[in-house]
């Protein structure tokens, strides 16, 4: 099954392929026109069926010129359109300076179906009408794909009207930047309606993609739940009455939690097949866990709009409805800069006082609930952002909308019911004690709540 992806230059053909293949590495994408110069293939293996091959083609740049040229060629050779186009793509001496277009048309003629990518932000112009005319002459089924429909400048309606005029009604709206699961499904469904005999193949493909997405959500929720359990059960002991020991313990615990969150973020990015490095500015050295923004700096906290004195205990009205307005700081940084961890020290002291009676001479320090709430909502927000991010997207995620406090209630009710099990945490340094089946069940339970949070808010 061959699907040719064609369109004007710089409309996001390669981005469409990246999004459909969940690969940020496919082809080259840039803001310059004519980035893709060769035809590149991506093969989707559908279990139990034939493969689906998508062909990325160079953009049609000078369609008006090409149309005039082919019309003249057709007159001259006295052939019909398909014959003339076939001769044009197979003979270099007939290609004039339309070599790039010839590559694209060549794939169209070989394809079972053609995806015609449209930048919906642009007005319908003569050159696009000429493109449609040429493609129409190729006598292949065409599915127009409206890209960038989520953009404020989108002119999707004008495009639909124009496409209807040339008898193309099976239009798909699919934004390569803002991923929409239903949009992807309707893309394959429309192809299936044009190629009736291939319906089982596309049904299987759709089912496989849905299954993958379910698994992806589950796996992501588990990553977050694991991090929460690790942080929730993390403990540091220190000598009572020894301020220095207490500060050292607090620092250790903070570092451990910070690194653990960072780990969860890279796991999430990796699982969603996003490239970490594309989203982290160079001056933030991710590998060393060394952040330019110190999350414990009061000024930084203030800039993030977090008022440490009004801690989010009890999920008050505003709760966690905090948007991390981080102009210039990209996804990774926004997600990783542990703004909320500033609460850690105070709360640790509070808890320390309560537990220390149980242990002679030693006090216990742990992470408190508001901090956990922030960790939970920040990572869920990241997960949500990743679930709605197309792999063709180029810009870093600039803003993570944290979920409201009340969304977290079921999750934290479940957390409060958990037994106190310091040996469930990997942050306590005792290797090997975390294999318990009950810990695993607890993680699954929390993951279930996180999954519900995600699906209820999206």
């Amino acid at each position, binding site marked *: 099954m061959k699907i040719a992806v064609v369109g*004007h*230059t*710089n409309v996001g053909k390669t981005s469409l392929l990246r999004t459909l*293949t*969940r*690969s940020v590495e*496919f082809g080259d994408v840039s*803001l*310059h*026109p*004519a980035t893709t*110069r*060769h*035809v*590149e*293939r*991506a*093969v*989707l*293996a559908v*279990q*139990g069926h034939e*493969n689906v091959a998508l*062909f990325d083609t160079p953009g049609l*740049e*000078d*369609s*008006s*010129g090409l149309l*005039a040229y082919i019309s003249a060629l057709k007159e001259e050779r006295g052939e019909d359109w398909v014959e003339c186009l076939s001769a044009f793509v197979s003979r270099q001496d007939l290609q004039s300076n339309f*070599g*790039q277009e010839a*590559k694209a048309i*060549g794939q169209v003629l070989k394809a079972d179906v053609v995806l015609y990518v449209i930048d919906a932000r*642009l007005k319908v*112009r003569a*050159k696009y009408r000429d493109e449609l005319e040429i493609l129409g002459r190729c006598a292949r089924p065409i599915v127009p794909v409206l890209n960038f429909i989520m953009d404020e400048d989108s002119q999707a309606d004008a495009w639909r009207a124009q496409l209807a005029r040339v008898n193309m009604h099976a239009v798909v709206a699919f934004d390569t930047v803002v991923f929409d699961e239903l949009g992807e499904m309707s893309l394959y469904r429309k192809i299936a309606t044009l190629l009736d005999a291939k319906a089982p193949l596309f049904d299987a493909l759709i089912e*496989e993609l849905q299954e*993958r997405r379910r*698994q992806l959500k*589950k*796996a992501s*929720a*588990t990553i977050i739940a*694991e991090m929460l359990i690790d942080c929730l059960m993390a403990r540091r002991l220190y000598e009572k009455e020894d301020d220095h020991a207490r500060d050292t313990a607090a620092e250790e615990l903070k570092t451990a939690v910070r690194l653990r969150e960072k780990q969860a973020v890279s*796991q999430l990015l*990796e*699982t*969603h*097949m996003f490239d970490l490095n594309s989203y982290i500015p160079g001056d933030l050295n991710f590998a060393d866990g060394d952040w330019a923004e110190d999350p414990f700096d009061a000024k930084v906290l203030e800039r993030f709009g977090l008022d440490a004195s009004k801690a989010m205990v009890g999920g008050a009205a505003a709760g966690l409805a905090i948007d991390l307005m981080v102009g210039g700081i990209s996804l990774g940084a926004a997600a990783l800069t542990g703004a909320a961890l500033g609460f850690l020290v105070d709360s640790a002291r509070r808890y320390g006082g309560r537990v220390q009676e149980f242990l002679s001479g030693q006090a216990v320090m742990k992470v408190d609930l508001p901090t956990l709430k922030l960790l939970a909502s920040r990572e869920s927000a990241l997960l949500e952002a990743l679930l709605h991010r197309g792999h063709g997207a180029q810009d870093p995620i600039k803003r993570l909308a944290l979920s409201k406090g009340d969304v977290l209630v079921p999750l934290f009710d479940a957390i409060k019911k958990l037994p106190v099990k310091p040996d469930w945490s*990997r942050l306590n340094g005792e*290797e*090997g*004690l*975390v*294999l318990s*089946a009950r810990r*695993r069940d607890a993680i*699954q339970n929390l*993951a279930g709540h996180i999954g519900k949070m995600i699906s209820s808010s999206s």
Partner: protein
Amino acid sequence: MLTPMGKGMTLKEEALWLVEATRYLEEAQGVGEETTALAAARKAEISIEGKIARRAEYLPSASQLLVERRALMRVFKLSIAFALVLFLVLGAFAAGAAFVVKDGHFVNIYWLLSSLLGIHILSLIIWLGGLAFGSGGLLGHLVSDISFSIARRVNSNSIRLAAVRAMMKRYVRGKGGLWLSSALSHGLWGAYLFGAMVAIFALLATQRYVFIWETTILSSQSYEALTHILSALPAQLGILVPGADIVRASEWPLNGDVSPGAHLLWSNFLFAVLLLYGLVPRILLCALSVFLARRYRRRSELDLSRPLYARLVPLLHPVVSKTDIVDEDDEGRVTENVTAQDPDIPVLEAEKTALLGWEIDKPEHGWPPSSFKGLDLGIFDERAQLADKLSQAQSRERLVVVLSATLSPDRGVGAVLSQCIQAMDRNRVFVWMVGAHQVKQKYGDAFMEARLGDWLSTAYQAGVSERHFLVAEWGDRAAQKILGDGQ
């Protein structure tokens, strides 16, 4: 679905065990950043289960886990061997103890049989009941939880704990575990009965016994009938068993003349009953259980819905299985790099300028700009009209082509500009980019710079002088100059 295992492709027991053990380890320790194993597995053209197994094999933890497995297996096998010997000895002692001898030579045959086979039959009934009603799951869970907590107390090494867990998963829990424990219990009973038979053989070989039976409340007929029923199967197999007269004669106190061959017939009967109702059923059931345990174990595929596997699936088995270039760019088109220059726009009388808008939106304040006094060629985007417009423009000194920076340039626009230059002459054609401000607002400075750079090189390649390239918004001062109204 991602579940089906590739046809004809089944993982070996050890590989499946390793996958489980690795899962337990990674659920506890987190998934390591082990890229070699991932890459090796991704490359292999096998089922997703195969890939997960391949990855587990390539992980550094694999060798340690397999060492643990071998050790555990050794312990397991040794324990079984030890238990078999123990039950053998127990059986022998039980047989000895069951030989209650009366008055020197007389042994009650039914007392002996019921003490040797009674518990065996009871345990068989319980086992059958367990199969019919109970689930082995509960017992399996109990055993595995107990073993795990023992292992955990003995040694907190996570490799070993993961190995123990995987052992329990593969061999103790579930249907396979149920059948394996059945096989074990049948085997032990077999050993017990075998030990008993050996001991009885030794006793009968070295001592002279007379087999008798006795009863207080039952009738003699019931013993005759019981013996008859029990003898039916041995008799079918050609074993000589006591007849009704011998049974009657063997009632204690001896009420008849026991023929000299009777003790041999009774010995035959004793061995036949122990063998056919004791040892043989246990051995058959043991073999059946081993077979079923293996079958269930082989059938237990990886549960790909587990979150850990869900994480590995996209990495090991990406949506796209292959990418390659099928039609390479052989033109190798090079874009000339042009550096932006300050525009050089000579002052011109207003009427001497022709103005053409190509693929632009009509400006807010109308077209042409109010200050424009020259020839208005209009806004259009159809190539067919171009030649006609250019012939009109030839009467003027200067042609200004207005283009929009909100679009990205293409060879089509390049062709339009070339045509303009052919019609006019290089020195008379000017390009005026509008909309740069809009681009900057929406996509930022860097994007706008890149966009204008692309436009400049497109114009330059079409033959437009880099000094005839103006970036200005409607109504800018610089625009006044290009419109031929400049001071």
